């Protein structure tokens, strides 16, 4: 559905997007996951036709991204990061306004209903809550019944409840047969929503697979984390089952990626006993995209 080939964008001599290529299948939820400043928004905006790529090309539904721009815009719906709308127009007026820009438009009532904004039709945009505003932003992205929808960090800044309700909307858009392209820096969001995820860092796509596949690529399925005593020189890398050992970003916690949790834990406890090292904050969990990102870049996805 979307084909991206060797996209490059240079700002002030820096390649913010560096030869990015991938394909998005029809009807899937495709995620672009990466930290702030990884180049996600620039990549999306080049695909949407809002920015001219310095190199590379984009094809959407067989249409050339730079030569058939207006046809592309009829096919896609966009929600930009922190969408700004006219504060002094009502929800209904905004939908009618954006609907008028397209050849085809869905009925206002239907949109209000499906985005849970029925009671807000006559409310000014400035009086909407963050969640309502974001639902309106997505409503006007699908006002012309597009086949492809771009959502740039749709849940950033929303409270957990509003985030859940947005996730339901994304899944419903997919169930309606649309292709959804979303960017996020929440790994949980990518895991929950996306059929496939491209991990982006410093302008490059460093991994691309389904969330399960990415985790499988770690060749480990579990993570052991603990806080060793200060200045402990005990090594843990050679414990049974350990594939990878890393220190957390702040340098206090040890992160062990293992494919044999029981053996690793047994070895860890006896090693600690032998050396007289106290293990605090010991916990185990299954590996997540966060660990994939950590392993690939040596960095954490979200700060803190």
């Amino acid at each position, binding site marked *: 559905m979307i084909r991206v080939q060797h996209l490059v964008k240079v700002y002030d001599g820096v390649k913010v997007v560096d030869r990015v290529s991938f394909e998005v299948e029809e009807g899937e939820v495709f995620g672009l996951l990466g930290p702030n400043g990884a180049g996600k928004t620039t990549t999306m905006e080049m695909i949407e036709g*809002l*920015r001219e790529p310095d190199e590379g090309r984009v094809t959407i539904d067989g249409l050339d991204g730079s030569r058939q721009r*207006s046809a592309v*815009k009829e096919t896609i719906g966009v929600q*930009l990061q922190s969408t700004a709308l006219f504060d002094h127009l009502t929800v209904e007026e905004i939908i009618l306004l*954006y609907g008028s820009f397209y050849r085809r438009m869905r009925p206002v009532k239907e949109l209000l209903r499906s985005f849970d904004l029925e009671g807000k039709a006559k409310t*000014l945009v400035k009086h909407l809550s963050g969640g309502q505003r974001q639902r309106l932003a997505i409503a006007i992205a699908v006002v012309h019944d597009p086949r492809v929808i771009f959502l740039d960090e749709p849940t950033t800044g929303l409270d957990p409840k509003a985030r859940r309700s947005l996730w339901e909307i994304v899944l419903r858009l997919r169930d309606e047969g649309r292709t959804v392209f979303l960017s996020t820096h929440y790994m949980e969001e990518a895991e929950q929503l996306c059929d496939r995820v491209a991990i982006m860092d410093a302008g490059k796509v460093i991994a691309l697979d389904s969330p399960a596949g990415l985790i499988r690529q770690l060749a480990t399925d579990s993570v052991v984390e603990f806080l060793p005593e200060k200045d402990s020189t005990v090594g843990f890398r050679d414990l049974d089952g350990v594939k990878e050992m890393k220190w957390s970003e702040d340098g206090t916690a040890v992160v062990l990626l293992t494919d044999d949790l029981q053996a690793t834990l047994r070895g860890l406890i006896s090693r600690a006993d032998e050396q007289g090292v106290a293990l605090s904050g010991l916990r185990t969990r299954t590996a997540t995209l966060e660990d994939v990102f950590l392993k690939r870049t040596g960095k954490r996805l979200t700060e803190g």
Partner: protein
Amino acid sequence: MKAYWRLTWAQLLLFARNKNTVIWSLFLPIFMMLALGTLMGDSGGTQFSLHVVVADEDQSAVSRELVKTFREAEGLKVSAADRDSGLKQVKSGDADLLVQLKKGLGERLASSGEKGSPNRVALYLDQTDPTVSEVGSTVVRQVIDRINKERLDYQPPVTVQEVNVQSRPLGYIDFLVPGILSLMIMTNNLNAVAATIASWRERGILRRMQGTPLSSSTFIAGQITARVMLNGLQALAVLLVAYFVYDVHVYGSWWLLLFFILLGTLTFMSMGFIIASLAKTPESAAPIAGLISFPMIFVGGIFFPVRDLPGLLQPLVKAIPIGYLTDSLRGVMNEGASLVQLWVPASVLGAWLIVSFTVAAWTFRWDVK
């Protein structure tokens, strides 16, 4: 077409819901007109009044007659005082001039200039106000001149007859109203467009529209239509108030007036778009627009005629559009001029429109970067 009407309608709704627009663009011009109209006197024309202090030291029959003449003269408010207190009043600005009728004036006149010195009347005035001193000294000289002539039984061989060439009773307010319309058209478009568009661009509202098939020409056309409607409405409101309060008439064609309002709106809007595109931030767009429009208020013939400006500024005045807009509006309203008579300002404005629209279209950006 659908998008064009929706955009126009949305912009009109935004105008109506924005208190600032209503206050600044509607009440301010009307208030300005009422304030200046009241201050400068209404349709009666030049209501010039001078406060004259007369110090009659002669106290003769002749001098009293002279004081009486002053009191009867049009535009003079006369009070009596002695020389020293009168001088104080002139210095403090409480009075405009002091006429001192020195002792021996009556004697000198009675003898038809045979006895005493001729220098019997002194005029004290503050020359820092050229208009007042000029008019004041002329009026006093005329009165004295008349008395001199009467005494000598002098009949001038040639007299000057003054004929008013304006067939219509025009006063300052008739001059002012077209000026206010012109000022309104400039600030509503140049300043408001620059600030609004720059802020929409900064907030990403324009970029969101760029994500749709909407073309920039449709967007701009919607803006133009809504603003022309707003300006037309404002002009109508100002003209109605001017008509009912000051009896100011539009002597020319309403269509021609509308044509010039349209021409001015488009020209200044284009300039507003240029500023919005060139300004780095929305915060700087408004001051840049102000920097351009503020001097235009003074050199645009809005509150006083362009010919009163120093000669040094004349080339500038001839180059910028505001004066031509003001002249055209004034021509249509006050003189009932036709488009043929106004072809010079109309073509200068047209040229400005073409140039600034071209630059505006060329520099227009949806996006910040």
